[in-house]
């Protein structure tokens, strides 16, 4: 009985070893490939849509137009690339808060906002006492994805009830009118 078992077990022994061997080899090859991929730098993440990278709301609070910029981690807005028009009138200087000075390899020292921030300006009344329309231009980049968003224009029509509103109109910005003073070469 024992001899019979030994005889019938022998022919299957080599294929079994081969099976184990080839499986081990496959695992090793795949493991090595995975390790090589893991060691290589991961590709940067896909950039977020600009309105997710920089969600902005506007509200009228105690006679002031308050714009809130919820700058997402890994993103930043340039302080010198803001433009604001209210009721069709462009505001010459904006009371922007201080940002963080960033040493940019291309632009030198630039001031940026990497955290949520807000901008408050006196709310001028529109026609017939209506809340004014606000047109905002801004530009920022994603440090995470290694890209920059083109300058964007967003229009807000907040009501006097203090409720924060999202932009009602979106659009690209003409470069002809933009960046006259900045982007020092």
């Amino acid at each position, binding site marked *: 009985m024992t001899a019979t078992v030994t005889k019938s077990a022998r022919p299957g022994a080599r294929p079994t070893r081969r099976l184990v061997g080839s499986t081990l080899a496959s695992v090793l090859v795949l493991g090595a490939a995975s390790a090589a991929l893991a060691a290589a730098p991961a590709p940067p993440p896909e950039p977020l849509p600009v309105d997710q990278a920089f969600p902005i709301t506007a509200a009228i609070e105690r006679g002031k137009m308050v714009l809130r910029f919820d700058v997402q981690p890994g993103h930043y807005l340039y302080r010198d*690339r803001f433009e604001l028009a209210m009721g069709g009138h462009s505001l010459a200087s904006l009371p922007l808060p201080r940002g963080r000075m960033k040493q940019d390899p291309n632009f030198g020292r630039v001031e940026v906002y990497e955290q949520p921030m807000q901008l408050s300006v006196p709310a001028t009344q529109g026609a017939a006492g209506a809340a004014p329309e606000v047109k905002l231009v801004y*530009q920022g980049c994603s440090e995470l994805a290694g890209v920059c968003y083109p300058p964007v224009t967003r229009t807000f029509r907040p009501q006097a009830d203090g409720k924060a509103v999202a932009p009602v109109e979106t659009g690209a910005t003409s470069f002809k009118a933009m960046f006259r003073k900045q982007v020092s070469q």
Partner: protein
Amino acid sequence: MSELSNRSRRVLIGASAVAAAAAGVLGGHWWLTRGTVAGDEAKLLAASFPAMDGGQATPMSTWQGKTLIINFWATWCGPCREEMPDFVKAQQAFGDKGLQFVGIAVDRRDAVERFAKELGINYPILLADVAWLNELRTMGNPQSVLPFTLVVSPQGKVTLRRVGRLKFDEIAAMFA
């Protein structure tokens, strides 16, 4: 029983080998094309763009038959400016192997002129209207961000779409 078992083992060994090969091929393909997505660039390759000298618009077909690297950029885009010295170096190194860079600036002419001179750009720079940023959405750049680069083979096939930086080593690997 033993014979059937051996056949099963052989099938199993074969299946393992096929699975390993398939994993390798798929993994390799993913690795080589990571960060790229499908798109439609026919409009771009058929378009003409104003050149820096303000003369006649230059058709993209000018460089048909070359390994064409089309780079969308702007002076207001830091990462764009950062990768461009690599492009200057690559144009110099692989120009005689059929590489042709073309920079398409979505920007103002005066700013582009200044920067191109400062950097010593050794390949053609064309100017695009801001409306072209929307066109990039269908070419593999859904957020219309910069920099954005396409590599087009001499046969006119897009072999790489890169949202973000393209490095010198990656360009060099195309000519290895």
